[in-house]
C-alpha cells in the first residue's frame, strides 16, 4: 500500500486509541493549590506540602503556578473549574468575594477548636471578612512589610553608618536616604557612566510605598481615592527625581534590561526595597546583606502586602481544602513560612518566636525589622482595584521618564479614577 494511505489509516487508528487515553489522563482526584511567584517559591511550597502530607497522607495537592495569575484565576472560576485553594491578595479580595467565587469558611473555623483567631495579627483576618456578616472567606497565609535590603560591604567602603544605625539616630528620613544613596552611587571605572547605584527600586510598580510617608492620605474610602494632592505629588516627584535629577537609581530604561532585584543581586546597587519574599531568593547571594526599616518623612509608613488562602465556592473537596488551609496557616505551617524567609507569619505567636526572629541564622540579618509597628492604620482597599491601578500606573509613566511633573499629571489621573469609581 502506498505510504500516504498508510499514513491516513495510521492517523485514524492513532487518534481513536490516543484520544480516550488522553481524557483519562486529565482526571485528577487530588486538590489543587494555585500560587503565584517564581520557581524558588514553588520549591518552598513543595516543602510545606511535604510536611502537610505527613499529617494528611491521603490528600494529594497539585500545584498550579501560572505566569499570569489573575486572568487565569478568573478564567478558571468562570469555567466552573476553579483551583480548590488559591492565593488571594487583600486588594483583590473584594472583587472576588462580590463575584461570589469564594467559599464561606466560617463553618469550618467554628468547627476547628484550635483555630485560635486571636493569634493572628490585628486586622489581618478582618481584611478577608464579609463586611456585613463578619464571616471569614480567607485565612491570611502570610504578610510582609517592605524593608530596605542593603549591601553591607558597600556601606563599609563608603564609611557610612548602616541604615539600621541611621534609623536609630533618627537620621533616616527619605531626604537622609537620598544623601546616603548619593554617597553610595559610584562610577568605578571613570567612564562617566554610573556602575553602582545607591538604590534600585521597581518604582513604576511600587511607588505606593511613598505617598503615605509624605503625608498623602490617598485611599480614603473604598470609592474615594484621592491622588491629586500636593503631598502625593511631592512623594511621586521625589521618587522620580532619584533617577532623573540625582541619578542615584536606575531609571525606567535600565530596569527594562535588568530588574530591580537583579541590580541588587548583581552588586550593581547598594540598596533595594521590597517585601520579605525576596529574602527567599537572596539567601543564596554570595555577599553579606542585611535589612533595615524603610525611610520615613512626615509619617512613619511602610507598605504591607497581605495574602490569604481562599477556597473556591465550587470546590469539589471543601473539607480537604480546609484541612490544607488550616495546616498551612496553623502554627506548624507558619513556622515553615518563617524558616523559608518567605514572609512574616500571620500568627503572632510564630512571628514573635525564635522561629521567625532567629530565622536564617547563617545570614545574620535583623528579622525583627519586619515587625516594627510602623504601618499606619488599617489596610486599605478600594473598588475596581485592577482598573484604578492600571490608570494610575499609566498616568504616572510620563513622570518616570521626566516628560511631565507629578503635579501636571495628577489632575488627569484623578479624573480617570473618578470616572472608573463612578461606574457601578
Amino acid at each position, binding site marked *: 500500500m502506498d505510504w500516504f494511505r498508510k499514513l491516513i489509516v495510521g492517523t485514524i487508528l492513532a487518534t481513536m486509541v490516543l484520544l480516550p487515553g488522553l481524557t483519562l489522563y486529565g482526571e485528577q482526584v487530588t486538590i489543587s493549590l494555585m500560587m503565584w511567584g517564581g520557581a524558588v517559591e514553588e520549591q518552598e511550597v513543595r516543602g510545606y506540602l511535604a510536611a502537610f502530607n505527613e499529617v494528611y497522607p491521603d490528600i494529594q495537592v497539585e500545584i498550579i503556578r501560572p505566569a499570569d495569575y*489573575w*486572568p487565569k484565576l478568573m478564567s478558571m472560576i468562570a469555567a466552573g473549574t476553579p483551583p480548590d485553594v488559591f492565593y488571594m491578595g487583600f486588594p483583590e479580595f473584594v472583587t472576588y468575594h462580590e463575584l461570589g467565587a469564594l467559599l464561606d469558611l466560617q463553618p469550618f473555623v467554628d468547627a476547628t477548636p484550635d483555630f485560635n483567631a486571636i493569634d493572628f495579627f490585628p486586622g489581618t483576618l478582618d481584611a478577608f471578612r464579609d463586611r456585613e456578616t463578619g464571616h471569614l472567606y480567607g485565612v491570611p497565609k502570610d504578610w510582609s512589610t517592605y524593608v530596605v535590603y542593603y549591601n553591607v560591604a558597600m556601606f563599609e567602603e563608603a564609611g557610612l553608618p548602616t541604615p539600621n544605625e541611621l534609623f536609630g539616630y533618627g537620621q533616616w528620613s527619605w531626604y537622609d536616604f537620598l544623601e546616603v544613596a548619593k554617597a553610595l552611587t559610584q562610577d568605578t571605572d571613570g567612564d562617566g557612566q554610573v556602575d553602582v547605584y545607591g538604590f534600585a527600586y521597581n518604582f513604576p510598580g511600587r511607588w505606593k510605598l511613598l505617598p503615605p510617608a509624605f503625608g498623602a492620605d490617598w485611599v480614603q474610602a473604598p470609592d474615594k481615592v484621592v491622588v491629586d494632592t500636593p503631598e502625593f505629588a511631592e512623594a511621586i516627584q521625589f521618587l522620580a527625581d532619584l533617577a532623573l535629577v540625582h541619578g542615584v537609581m536606575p531609571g525606567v530604561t535600565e530596569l527594562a534590561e535588568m530588574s530591580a532585584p537583579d541590580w541588587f543581586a548583581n552588586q550593581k546597587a547598594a540598596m533595594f526595597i521590597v517585601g520579605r519574599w525576596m529574602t527567599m531568593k537572596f539567601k543564596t547571594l554570595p555577599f553579606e546583606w542585611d535589612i533595615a526599616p524603610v525611610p520615613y518623612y512626615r509619617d512613619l509608613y511602610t507598605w504591607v502586602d497581605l495574602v490569604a488562602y481562599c477556597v473556591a465556592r465550587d470546590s469539589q473537596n471543601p473539607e480537604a481544602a480546609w484541612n490544607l488551609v488550616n495546616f498551612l496557616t496553623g502554627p506548624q505551617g507558619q513556622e515553615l513560612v518563617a524558616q523559608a524567609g518567605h514572609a512574616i507569619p500571620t500568627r503572632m505567636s510564630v512571628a514573635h518566636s525564635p522561629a521567625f526572629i532567629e530565622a536564617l541564622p547563617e545570614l545574620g540579618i535583623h528579622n525583627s525589622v519586619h515587625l516594627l509597628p510602623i504601618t499606619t492604620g488599617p489596610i486599605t482597599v478600594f473598588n475596581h482595584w485592577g482598573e484604578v491601578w492600571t490608570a494610575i500606573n499609566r498616568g504616572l509613566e510620563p513622570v518616570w521618564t521626566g516628560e511631565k511633573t507629578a503635579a501636571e499629571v495628577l489632575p488627569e489621573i484623578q479624573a480617570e479614577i473618578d470616572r472608573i469609581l463612578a461606574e457601578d
Partner: protein
Amino acid sequence: MFGKLGRYKYKQWFWGYLFVLPVMAGFFLFMIYPMISGIALSFYKWPGIGPKEWAGVANYLKMFNDAHFLRAVGNTVYYTLGILVLGIPLALFWAILLNQKFLKGRNFFRLIYFLPTVTMMAAVSMVWKWLLSPNYGLVNYFLGLVGLPKVNWLLDPKWAMPGLILMSIWKGTGFNMVIFLAGLQGIPKTYYEAAEIDGATAWHRFRYITLPLLSPTTFFVVITTMITSFQIFQQAYILTEGGPREATTTIVFYIYKNAFEWFKMGYSCAQSVFLLLILILATLIQWRIQRRWVHYA
C-alpha cells in the same frame, strides 16, 4: 452509460454531504455558534460568572465614548498602515531582487528570507524584546555603528509601535515575498522582450508591465496582510503588555484585557463584534475595488 452516470450523480450527493460533514460541523459548532453567541453576549452586562444582565446597546454606546478603546483602534490602524506601507513594498522589492535572471542561489536566499515566517511568534517576540533593549540591544548597537542615536524602542510611547512594526516586518515579509515571486514568475517573458525592443526603461517596464500584471497578487497580499494585521495581539501581549502609556494597546489586546482581567465579558464581546464588522467591511470594499483596478493577464 447514462444510467451509470445518473446513478453517479446521486452517489455524489451522498458522498459529497458525507465528506463535507465533519468540516461543516466544525464550522457551525466552533465558528458560527460562537459568533452568534458572541453577538448575543454583546448586549449583556456579564462579569463571567453569575447571571447576565440585559444592557441593550449600552456596551456599544460605551465603546464609542471609551477613549481607551478609540486609542486601541487608532493603534491598530497605525500598525496596519505601517505594515502595508513598509512591509508590502519591501516584499515586492525582495521578490524583484530574487527574480533577477543572473542570480545564483535563488532558492537559498528565498529560504533565508522565508525562515522567520515559520517560527513561533511567542519565542520570536522574546528574542526581539532583547534585540530592542535600549542599552544592550543589538538594534541600537547597529544604529550606533552608523552614527545614529539610541532609540528607547519599547519604552518610549513614540517608538514602541515602530518597534513592533519593525519586528513584524522581519517576521512576515518573507511570506508576501514568496507570493510576489510566484506572481512575477507568472508574467510571460514576451512582454518584457517586446518592451525592451521598444527601448523602455527599467522603470517603465516596472510601471507599465510588472505592476499591472502583478495586480491580482498585490490585491491578495494587501487583503490578507490587512486582515492579519488587524488581529495583532501576541506582539503587544509579550513585548510591551500594551504599553507604554497604551501606545501598543491594540483592539484585540484591549478585548483580552476587558474580558479576562476586568471581568467585562459583555463589553469585550461588543468590541469583538466591532472588529469583526471592520474585517468583513474591509474585505467587501476590497472586493469591489478589485473589480476596478485588478488586471487579469
